C-alpha cells in the first residue's frame, strides 16, 4: 500500500470523516471504518486523519494500536481468528489449535510468507455456545473438530 493506492486511501478516510464528523469522539468510529475498508490502517490514512481531526499523530497511533480490531500492519488475504479463552479451551480448543499449527506453521500474529493467511489468537468472540470457535474473515465456524481444519482452510483456496 503506497503511492499507487494513495488517492484511494484518502477518499476512504474522507468518506469516513464526512460520516462521523471531526470531533474527538469520532476518532475510533473513523479508524474502525477505515480499517474495515482497507484491511488495516496505513500510515497515509493515519496522517490524513491527523490532518482532518487535528488530533496529535502520536495519539492517533496510540489509539490505533490499542484496539484488537484495528491493525497498523498489513494483514494477509484471509485473517484467521482462533479463540483461546477458557470456555473454548475446555471443550477441545487445544486440539483445534494443534491442528491449525500443523496446517499453517504460523505463530500467533504472523502472516504467511505468501501473504495468504494471518493467524491471530484472540480472547472470547462471544459465540462460546458453539465452542471451540474459529473465525475466518467474516465466517464463523463453531463446534470445530481438529479433523475439519484442513477442509475448512481448503475453502479459501
Amino acid at each position, binding site marked *: 500500500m503506497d503511492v499507487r493506492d494513495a488517492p484511494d486511501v484518502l477518499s476512504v478516510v474522507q468518506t469516513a470523516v464526512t460520516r462521523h464528523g471531526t470531533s474527538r469522539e469520532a476518532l475510533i468510529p473513523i479508524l474502525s471504518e477505515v480499517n474495515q475498508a482497507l484491511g488495516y490502517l496505513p500510515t497515509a490514512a493515519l496522517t490524513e486523519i491527523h490532518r482532518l481531526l487535528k488530533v496529535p499523530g502520536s495519539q492517533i497511533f496510540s489509539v490505533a494500536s490499542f484496539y484488537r480490531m484495528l491493525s497498523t500492519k498489513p494483514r494477509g488475504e484471509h485473517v484467521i481468528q482462533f479463540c483461546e479463552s*477458557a470456555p473454548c479451551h475446555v471443550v477441545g480448543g487445544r486440539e483445534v489449535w494443534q491442528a491449525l499449527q500443523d496446517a499453517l506453521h504460523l505463530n500467533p500474529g504472523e502472516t504467511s510468507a505468501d501473504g495468504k493467511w494471518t493467524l491471530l489468537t484472540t480472547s472470547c468472540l462471544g459465540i462460546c455456545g458453539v465452542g471451540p470457535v474459529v473465525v475466518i474473515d467474516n465466517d464463523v465456524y*463453531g463446534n470445530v473438530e481438529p479433523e475439519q481444519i484442513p477442509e475448512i482452510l481448503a475453502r479459501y483456496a
Partner: protein
Amino acid sequence: MKVIRSMVLVSSDPESMERGAQKIYRRLQQEIEKFGLQDEVSVAMVGDVGRHDALPLVIVYPEAVIYGPVKPDDVPFLVEEHLYKGRIATRLQAPARELSGRIAWLSARQGTLPAQQRIVLERTGQINPDDIEDYIAHDGYVALGLALTTMKPEDVISEITKSGLRGRGGAGFPTGLKWRFVAQAKGHPKYVICNADESEPGTFKDRLILEGDPHSVLEAMVIAGYAVGANEGYIYVRGEYGLAQERLARAIAQAKEMGFLGRDIFGSGFDFEIHIHAGAGAYICGEETALIESIEGKRGEPRARPPYPTTHGLWGKPTLVNNVETLANVPPIIRNGASWYKQFGTPSSPGTKVYTILGNVNVTGLIEVPMGITLREVIAIYGKGMKGGAAFKLAQTGGSSGSIIPASLQDTPMDFDSYSRAGVSLGSGALLICDENTCVVDLARVLLNFFRRETCGKCTPCRIGTERAYQILSSLAEGTGQLSDLDDLQVIAKSMAELSNCGLGQSAAVPIRDILKHFSAEVEAHIRLKVCPAGACPMSGRLARAA
C-alpha cells in the same frame, strides 16, 4: 394493508446458527413465496427461544407449534403442511419436555422459584426484534408511558430502589442507589450509558438480549434518563456484535418515528436521544471508566477512582453506567411494581439472573432462573447432566474474572449474599462447567493468558503480575516448576489484588488463589511428582503448547 395470519419464528442463538438457522430462514422465505403466502405469513429470526434441546427451532404462531430440530430440507414440507394446508406437521414437532415451553419453572422448589417466569427474556424468542409493533403488542413502552405521565423522577428511583435490583454487570451494586447518586450529582448535562461491551469469556447473555429484544433496553434507558435528569444516552456495544448493532440502530429509528425517543416523549416535555458507539476490540473497555475514555476517543484505560462516574463521568459530567441485563429489568419493574418483582429470587437478591451454561454438560445455552438456584440444579436440569456421564469437578462462575468453585460448593444458593459469604463471586453470569478431565493448572494458565493479553498495562502490579503468573503456571504445566513457585504465586496474587487500579488486575488474582485454596494437592502433584493428574498439561505429552 397486509393482514398477517401466521408468524414464523426461527431460533438464532449460536447453536442454531451453527446448525443452519440462516439457511432455514431463507428457505422459509422462498417456500412461502412459492405458495404465494408472503402477504399473510411473516418470518423472523428471533434469537434465543429458551429451549436448547432440539435446535434449530421453528415456532409457528398463533398456534404456538414448536418444530425442531429442523433441517433446511424439512422446510418445504413444513410450509406446505402447516402454512398452506393448515395441518400441524407432526413428524417435525419438537419433543415434549418436562420444562414445558418456558424457562425458570421448577414448581417443586419452594420460595425461590414460584411460577414459570421470564422477566428479562420475556419476549426474546417470541417477538420479531425488527418490528416495534410486535414489541408494543407485548406491553412494550407501557412502562415508559407510566413513568413519564404518572410518576415523578423521584418516584421512579424509589420504585427501583424498593425492588432491590442489583447490577448484573458483575459487581452487584444496588441499582436504585446508583440512580440516586446520579440524580443528586451537581452538573449538567448528565448522561446514561448502557454497557453492552460484554467481552467476558463465556458470557453472551447481553448480546442475546440486544438481538432478541432491543427495544427493552432503549425503553429502560429513557426511563433511566428521566429518573436521573439526563437527556442523552450512549450504548457502548462490543465491536464484534454486528447483528446487535444493526438491530439497535433499526430499533432507535423506529422508536424515534413513533415518538418514544426524541423530543417531548408522550407529551411530557421530556427529551431523550440515544447514540450507538461500537467498541473496537478490547476487554478492558467493559470497565466503566475505560468505556468512558473510549467513547471520548481515547485508549480504553481505566481512570483512577474516586471520583466516580456518577459525579465525574463522560466529559467530566455525572453519568449513569448500567449493564444491559440490569436495564432490561427496569421496564417490568416499573410496569408491575417493586413488590411484584420481589416475589422472585431471594429477599436480598430479588429477581432472576440470566446465565450462559457452557463446558462439559450435555446441553449448553442461555437460561433465566430466579436468584438463589444452585449450581447442582442448573447442571442437572438445564445442562441435562454432565457430558458422557463424567464427574463434575469444578465450575467457573462469571467468566474469566469469576471464581473457581469446587464440587463442595455446588449446593450454595446462587445469589449475591450467599456467594459472597462463601468467598465466591457471581460475576457476569457465565457458568463454565468442567469435568474430571480438566486440570486446574491448565485452566489457570489459560485464564492468566487472557488477563496478560487484556491488561491495559497502565499499572505495574497488573501488567507484570499477570505476565509473571502466566509464566509460572506454564512452567508448572510443563513439569519444570518448583515448590517455591507456589509462594511466588501467592505473593503475585496478593499484590495484584491489593495494588491494582481496576477490577481486571484484582480479578486476575482470583483463579490463582482459588486453585491454591481448593486444589493444592493437584497443583503440588505437578511439582513433586511431575505429573498432571488430569492428563491435560503439555508435560503429559499429548499436545504442544498453545499460545
